[in-house]
C-alpha cells in the first residue's frame, strides 16, 4: 500500500514523538497583574467585544472578532497611545479550524508596552485594511495577501509583493510544499520558452550532488575529454593525456620598454 501523506499539511513533521510526551505551555498571566495593560484593556473592552486577553512573555495578547479589527486598533492607537504597528501577519490554521489567525503587533513608545491584537478569520472572507491608521500596514498587508492569499479590503494597492505577479499559489500556506509545486518547478521554462519546451529541457535538477557520467555537454573531465555531445554510453575512447603548451611571458618587457622610452 502507498504511504499515506496528509494533503492539508505538507510541512516537515517530527519523525518520532514519545507516547508519554506532554506538551507544556508557556506560562500566561492575568491582565490585571499589569496596571497599564489592565487600564488599556478596560478602554478597549468598553467598545469592542473581547474574546480573550492575557499576558504572555511581557506582552498582552487580545483576541477579538475579525470584524472589529479596524475599530479595536483605532481605539488602541487613539486612546491607548499605540503609535506604531511593528508587524502584522497571519498563521495558517486551515487544516485544524478552516481559519487564519491574523495578528497585529503594536507598540506604545511612551509606556514601552507592546500588545498583540489577534483575530481569527474563516477562509474565503476578507479582512479590513488598517492602512488608514498605520501606513506601515501597506507593505505588510500586501505580504499577507501574497503569502496566504488572504484578501484585504480597502487596501490602496493590493498586489503581490515578494512573488512575481503571475505566480500561482501562496507559499506560506501549510498545503504548499517547501520545494514548490508543479507550477513553480516549470515557472521559468514556461515563461521563457513556453510549455512545449518542457520535454526538451526536462525537470530542474535539485540534487546538488548529482553527477551524470554520460553527460558530455556540461562537464569536461580533464585528461578524458571527448567531443562535445559525444555519446559515450557504450564506453569511452581512451584518449592520451595532452597537456597544454605553456607560453612563457616576459613580464619585464614592458618595464624595459618604458626605460628605453625614457
Amino acid at each position: 500500500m502507498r504511504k499515506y501523506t496528509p494533503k492539508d499539511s505538507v510541512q516537515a513533521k517530527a519523525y518520532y514523538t514519545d507516547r508519554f510526551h506532554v506538551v507544556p505551555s508557556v506560562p500566561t498571566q492575568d491582565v490585571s497583574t499589569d496596571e497599564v495593560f489592565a487600564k488599556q484593556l478596560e478602554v478597549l473592552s468598553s467598545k469592542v467585544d473581547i474574546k480573550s486577553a492575557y499576558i504572555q512573555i511581557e506582552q498582552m495578547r487580545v483576541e477579538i472578532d475579525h470584524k472589529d479589527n479596524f475599530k479595536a486598533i483605532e481605539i488602541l492607537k487613539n486612546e491607548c497611545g499605540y503609535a506604531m504597528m511593528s508587524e502584522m501577519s497571519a498563521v495558517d490554521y486551515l487544516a485544524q479550524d478552516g481559519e487564519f489567525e491574523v495578528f497585529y503587533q503594536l507598540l506604545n513608545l511612551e509606556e514601552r508596552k507592546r500588545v498583540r491584537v489577534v483575530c481569527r478569520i474563516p477562509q474565503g472572507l476578507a479582512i479590513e485594511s488598517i492602512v488608514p491608521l498605520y501606513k506601515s500596514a501597506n507593505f505588510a498587508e500586501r505580504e499577507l495577501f501574497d503569502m496566504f492569499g488572504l484578501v484585504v479590503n480597502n487596501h490602496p494597492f493590493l498586489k503581490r509583493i515578494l512573488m512575481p505577479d503571475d505566480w500561482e499559489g501562496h507559499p506560506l500556506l501549510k498545503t504548499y510544499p517547501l520545494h514548490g509545486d508543479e507550477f513553480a518547478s516549470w515557472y521559468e521554462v514556461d515563461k521563457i520558452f513556453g510549455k512545449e519546451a518542457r520535454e526538451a529541457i526536462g525537470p530542474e535538477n535539485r540534487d546538488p550532488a548529482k553527477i551524470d557520467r554520460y553527460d558530455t555537454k556540461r562537464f569536461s573531465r580533464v585528461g578524458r575529454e571527448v567531443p562535445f555531445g559525444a555519446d559515450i554510453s557504450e564506453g569511452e575512447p581512451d584518449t592520451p593525456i595532452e597537456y597544454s603548451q605553456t607560453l612563457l611571458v616576459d613580464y619585464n618587457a614592458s618595464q624595459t620598454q618604458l626605460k628605453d622610452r625614457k
Partner: protein
Amino acid sequence: MQQPNKLTPFFENLNFERDDNTMVINFGPQHPSAHGQLRLMLELDGEQVVKAYPDIGYLHRGIEKMAENMTYNEFLPTTDRLDYIASTSNNYAYALAVEKLIGLEVPRRAQVIRTMLLEVNRLLSHLFFIATHALDVGAMSVFLYAFREREFGMDLMEDYCGARLTHSAVRIGGVPLDLPDGWMINLRKWCDGVEYELKHTYNALLEKNRIWKMRLENVGVITPEDALSWGCTGPMLRGSGIAYDIRKEEPYELYSELDFDIPVADTNDSYGRYRLYMAEMLESTKILRQLVIMYDDTEPQLMAHAPAYISAPKEEIMTQNYSLMQHFVLVTQGMRPPKGEVYVPTESPKGELGFYIKSEGEPYAYRLKCRAPSFFHTGLLQEILVGTYIADVVTIIGSTNIVFGEVDR
C-alpha cells in the same frame, strides 16, 4: 508593453508617455546604488519624481517557509542570510526569541560575549553604511577608509568564529566558544582605531564638506508622524527626533548595566541621520570598552543548563551516558519548546529586528515571522521619494540603509 518604432525609440529602461509629459524610469534591480536588488519605478516630471513604486522580491528565498520545515537549531545559520552585513544581530535576535519561549537564563560570560559581538556587528554595519552612503553620494575615498576599518572588524569576527560574513556566532542558550587569547587586546586596538578614524578621517572628510552637506541637508526629510506611521525604527526613527532605542527602553542582554547614550537627530534629513550614525559608532566603542572590563569577573560557563532543550557541554557528552542520550535526541529530533507565542524585539543596526514565533510544542516552529526593519523602510520610499529630484533618489536610498537579504527574506 511598449511598441518600439521610429517615433518612440526603445530604451531598455525608459518609457516615454506622451500624454502627460512624464517619463517612467526603471531604477534597478541591478543598479549599483540600489543596495542589492531594489527595483524602483519612478515617474518623472522633468527631474522631479512624481510617483515612486518600489518593487521588491528579487532576493526572496522563503526563509519563513524554511523556518517551518527546520528544527530550531537547524534554522539558526539561515538567519545569517537576513541582514548579511551584520549577521550576528540576526542570530542573536532569533536565539533570544527561542530562549524567551523556553524561559532560559543565559550564563553571564555568554551574555558578555554576545553583547560584545552585537556591538562589533553594529560597528561593522555602520562602517558599511558610511562607506556605501558616501560612495553613492560621490565621496570615493571615505569608502576606502571605512572599508579598511571594517576589514579589521571582520578579522575580529573571524578570530572569534571563523567566518567573516555569515557568522552564526550565537547559539540558542549561549555562545559556542570562549573568546580566543588576545582577542580583547585586538578589540581595544580596533576601538582605538575606529575612534581615531571617525574623528580624523570620516568626520574630517565629510562633516563640513560643502558638497556633502549640499547633497544631504534637507534631502529625504521624514517627519516624526511619518516615521511612526510607516513603522520606521532604529536610526530612521531617531533621525526624526524620536528617542526610542530598544536597547535603552526595553533592555535585553547586558544593556541595562551599561552606560551609553542614545543620540538623536531632530533635523529629520539625511545629514542628521549621517551624524547619528557617526555618534552611534562612538557609543558602540564606549560599550565595548565597558564590556572588556566586565568579562574578567565572569565564570567560564558558556551554555545554559537546560537538559531538555540544550545539549550538555562536550566533555559531559563524552563522559556521561545520560548527557549523550539527550544530545542524541536533541540532534535527531530537535528541541520542543512549550506551546505558546512570543514576539521579541531587538535593536539591530538597521532598526527593530523582531522574531515572532508560534510554537505548537513540535520540534518545528508552527509559524515564524521575521520583522525586518528594512522591509518597512523600503515601504517608506514610496512616500518620501515623491517631490524629490532624481539626483537625490540615490542619496535617500543610501540613507535609509536597507539590506535586501532582510527586505525579501
